[in-house]
């Protein structure tokens, strides 16, 4: 039970959550809540595996997976934005449909042969840094490094660019944006698409990098939902999302590893001798998510921060602001 290994694996596993969480942050910042993340992740995982088996090229697989998930997200986008239906139910519907589709189309995948995975490597200078090097920069999948770049890129985009400013505006006060000529509906479609693509990327990361293989629904095992919870914990900020994602990733790895050794810190390891206590460990990520939500809600109530004001509310011109 080497803490370095746990954290290193945690970063890898957390990258999956990171992609999904940031994708949902972007969609929700534009004012649309997309609860179909789990379904889109599964579609991404399934698609990437299918394509990799067919073409042998993991990069193409990733791109196709992202596109497929993004396309799926547009069903929800049309229903939520154009049809102005209730976004909760629409997102759930997308979720079920996505999971169902992935299961059906991915039926044959568990008999698959060898996969060509995405490359993993170390970064030369950085991996020599004590402590941080082995964790963050040694033998990690390329996707992990993409994740490192995504966080500041997302943050900069949202907070320091003009399109990012418009993104925030349409999620907070779409009437003001509309009055100044911004195409609220069109932009919302775009950002839901981007959110979908990132969820698909998360799924592809599972299949081709972190936990290769197809395990039906267990491939994602609720991470899509944890991501939605993390969005609230992150207060819709990519940097906080990273903190949350990597922490959760480490937690999941810890849960796995803690059941292995016979002693921990030279004490008898209760999880080794009474293996079924592992079930309580399995509960932890989900209980943590609830705890995280409770903290997030209280903070929002106190700090006048919180969700984008127009989140979940269909925008209809003519209903002015307040």
């Amino acid at each position: 039970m080497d803490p370095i290994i746990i954290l290193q694996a945690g970063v890898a596993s957390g990258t999956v959550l990171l992609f999904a969480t940031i994708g949902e942050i972007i969609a929700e910042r534009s004012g649309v809540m997309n609860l179909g993340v789990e379904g889109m992740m599964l579609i991404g995982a399934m698609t990437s595996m299918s394509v990799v088996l067919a073409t042998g090229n993991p990069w193409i697989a990733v791109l196709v997976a992202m596109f497929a998930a993004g396309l799926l997200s547009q069903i929800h986008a049309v229903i939520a934005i154009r049809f102005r239906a209730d976004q909760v139910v629409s997102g759930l519907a997308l979720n079920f449909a996505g999971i169902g589709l992935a299961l059906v189309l991915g039926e044959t995948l568990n008999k698959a042969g060898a996969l060509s995975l995405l490359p993993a490597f170390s970064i030369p200078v950085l991996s020599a840094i004590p402590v941080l090097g082995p964790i963050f920069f040694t033998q990690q999948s390329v996707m992990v490094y993409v994740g490192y770049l995504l966080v500041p890129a997302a943050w900069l985009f949202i907070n320091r660019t003009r399109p990012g400013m418009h993104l925030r505006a349409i999620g907070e006060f779409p009437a003001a944006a509309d009055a100044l000529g911004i195409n609220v509906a069109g932009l919302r479609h775009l950002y839901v698409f981007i959110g979908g693509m990132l969820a698909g990327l998360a799924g592809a990361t599972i299949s081709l990098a972190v936990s290769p293989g197809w395990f039906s629904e267990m491939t994602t095992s609720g991470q899509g939902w944890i991501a939605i919870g993390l969005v609230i914990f992150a207060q819709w900020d990519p940097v906080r999302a990273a903190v949350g994602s990597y922490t959760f990733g480490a937690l999941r790895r810890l849960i796995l590893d803690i059941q292995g050794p016979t002693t921990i810190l030279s004490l008898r390891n209760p999880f080794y001798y009474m293996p079924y206590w592992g079930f309580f460990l399995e509960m932890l990520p989900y209980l943590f998510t609830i705890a995280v939500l409770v903290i997030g809600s209280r903070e929002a109530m106190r700090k006048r921060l919180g969700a984008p004001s127009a989140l979940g509310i269909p925008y209809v011109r003519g209903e002015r602001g307040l």
Partner: protein
Amino acid sequence: MTTPDRAVPRPRGRFPVEIRLEPRTAQPRWLGLAVSTGAVIVALLLGAIVMAAAGGDPFRAYGFMVKAAFGEAGVFSDTMVKATPLILLGAACAVAFSMKLWNIGAEGQFFLGAFGASAVVLTPLLPPETSPWIMIPAMILAGMLAGALWGFIPGILKAKLNVNEIITTLMLNYVAVNWNNFFIYAVWSEGGFQMTHKFPATAWLPRLADYAKQFPQLRGLTTHLGLVIALVAAVIAWWILYRSRWGYEIRLAGDNPRAAKYAGINISRNTILVMMLSGALAGLAGMSEISGVVHRLQGSISPGYGFSAIIVAWLAKLNPLAVIPVSVLFGALIQAGREIQPSGVPKMIQGIVLVCLIGSDLLLRYRVRILVRRQEA
């Protein structure tokens, strides 16, 4: 006083055809049923397309479904067994959704209900010789209480701290499965297998097949008393929602919380109570399933009933009575699903049905007009 203008068509796009949504001013009664039926048909068609693309045989699959629903007694009986928990879970979802409380945790409450009922038998709270007239009601009560507890937690978090109940209920699903697994593997396990001891016969819900001696036609029919319980519960749930004062308050609070406050309704208290009722119904489903079908507590007691129930409730337009026939339909789907390749088909069809339903709701609220626009001068 100034009614805002309907959005003036902006000469933005280059499409000569414009699709405009106009709010309906009247809604004939047949429209709801027609739209829902249309949505289901479209969903089945889409499902068939996907199945064909994945190499399956849609006609065979749908053939199984029809047989399961309308075929011979044996298959129909199995369908009803599948429909039983769906009725209860569908009613549970209908109750919660009527107040716009998104209880996605019916699955977890189902598991906890199974746990509660099992605890009565396996701890053992009541000795195996206890008369079934005491044992069964005790299990029912325990199952409902356990489910109500699992609904209480997200309920109070939502009421007091405004924590999103979608995620809390969902997370509790996973917690519930692991909780049950612990007891199945570690505490009550039978010789290392992944299931508990079989329940004593006094803890079994009677089945039609039990009377095969007197009525030979009933041989092999596994429909159990749980069905009666489910039907009764559905009627009670319907009565609560549509005939009682409390149900009126629930529906009013779900439709417009401000108006409900004006009418003097306590939203916070009702949130908790409704979640507990929903959880109790789901817990009852859990009890019914283990006492009527598998007669022990084990890990796999649900092919996703709790999630199917969401779609059932929505298709039934949140009416617990309508939940009954819809549950039979979905029961047939799940039953047939055991024969269909690929095995994810029932789930997929359910998902597509829900998508089509949501999309079709649009037609209920708006009339769709297609206009051909000329170029603006």
